[in-house]
């Protein structure tokens, strides 16, 4: 069987591109990292990932400047044609800044950079990303961010709920919602209405082996390959 291909975007200040590549390769994908000055997303990409990091030093706002990189027009076209896109951490911030995902990510309410293992609950699994996870399943995935405080207004939130766009919620080990960073309804990840663009603050690529403290990221990232 042909290996699915994951294209990983790299901006100045991106720092999770190699971890992300390693994780996907370990899970049987072929990966290629492309520099943000490229103006074409390779046609054979089965998934495009915007990895974590601090694109453009988080200047102005996290993700605000990456959004104007040359590769972004091609990414937008790719997503508009139904291509699958995953934004992890800074990638999630870029996708909200681009308007491919609703809402915005603000400074954490306690103003700290929060870096730790965190439990998150699966809210909707009826999508190409979390289809290997159970609804309400509690996953242990590291977080590392200063601007992860998800905000969306009440009307949009209501629409997102009706469309099953809420993916993950911060919770305690028993699955009870918990305040991590001040996010609206403790949201940790969302998708667009068409369910081809996904964004989350936790780092599944850092949870792919039990020696790393958790391998719960495997079933998340594997969701993108057909069963």
């Amino acid at each position, binding site marked *: 069987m042909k290996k699915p291909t994951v294209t990983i975007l790299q901006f100045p200040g991106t720092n999770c591109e190699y971890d992300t590549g390693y994780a996907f390769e370990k899970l049987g994908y072929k990966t290629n990292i492309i520099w943000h000055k490229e103006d074409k997303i390779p046609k054979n990409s089965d998934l495009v990932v915007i990895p974590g990091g601090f694109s453009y030093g988080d200047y102005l706002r996290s993700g605000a400047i990456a959004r104007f990189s040359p590769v972004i027009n091609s990414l937008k076209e790719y997503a508009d044609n139904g291509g699958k896109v995953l934004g992890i951490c800074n990638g999630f911030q870029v996708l909200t800044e681009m308007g491919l995902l609703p809402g*915005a990510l*603000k*400074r954490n*309410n306690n103003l700290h950079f929060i870096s730790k293992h965190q439990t998150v609950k699966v809210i909707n699994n009826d999508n190409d990303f979390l289809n290997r996870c159970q609804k309400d399943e509690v996953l242990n995935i590291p977080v590392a961010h200063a601007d992860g*405080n998800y905000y969306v207004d009440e009307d949009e939130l209501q629409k997102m709920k009706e469309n099953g766009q809420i993916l993950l919620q911060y919770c305690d080990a028993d699955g009870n919602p918990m305040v991590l960073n*001040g996010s609206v309804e403790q949201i940790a990840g969302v998708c667009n209405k068409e369910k081809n663009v996904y964004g989350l603050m936790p780092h599944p690529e850092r949870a792919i082996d039990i020696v790393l403290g958790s391998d719960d990221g495997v079933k998340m990232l594997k969701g993108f390959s057909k069963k």
Partner: protein
Amino acid sequence: MKAIVNVYLKNGVLDPQGKATHHALNSLGFSNIDNVRIGKQIVMELNSNDTESAAKEVKEMAETLLANTVIEDYDIEIVE
């Protein structure tokens, strides 16, 4: 001329930096404060003589890049 763009979180969007600063000011003994909001100021030297067209252009800059209008408001001041 100069353009000054002030960007701040919308009313109703919790401003954690403003809140923390408010607490710090209170603990320093400054108690007559109702609210603190923290924003940013972007100052641009413009190569233009036409205030009206400059204001229009700066508004476009604010809408597309300088502010994220999902969470932020902005105001623009053009100084001759």
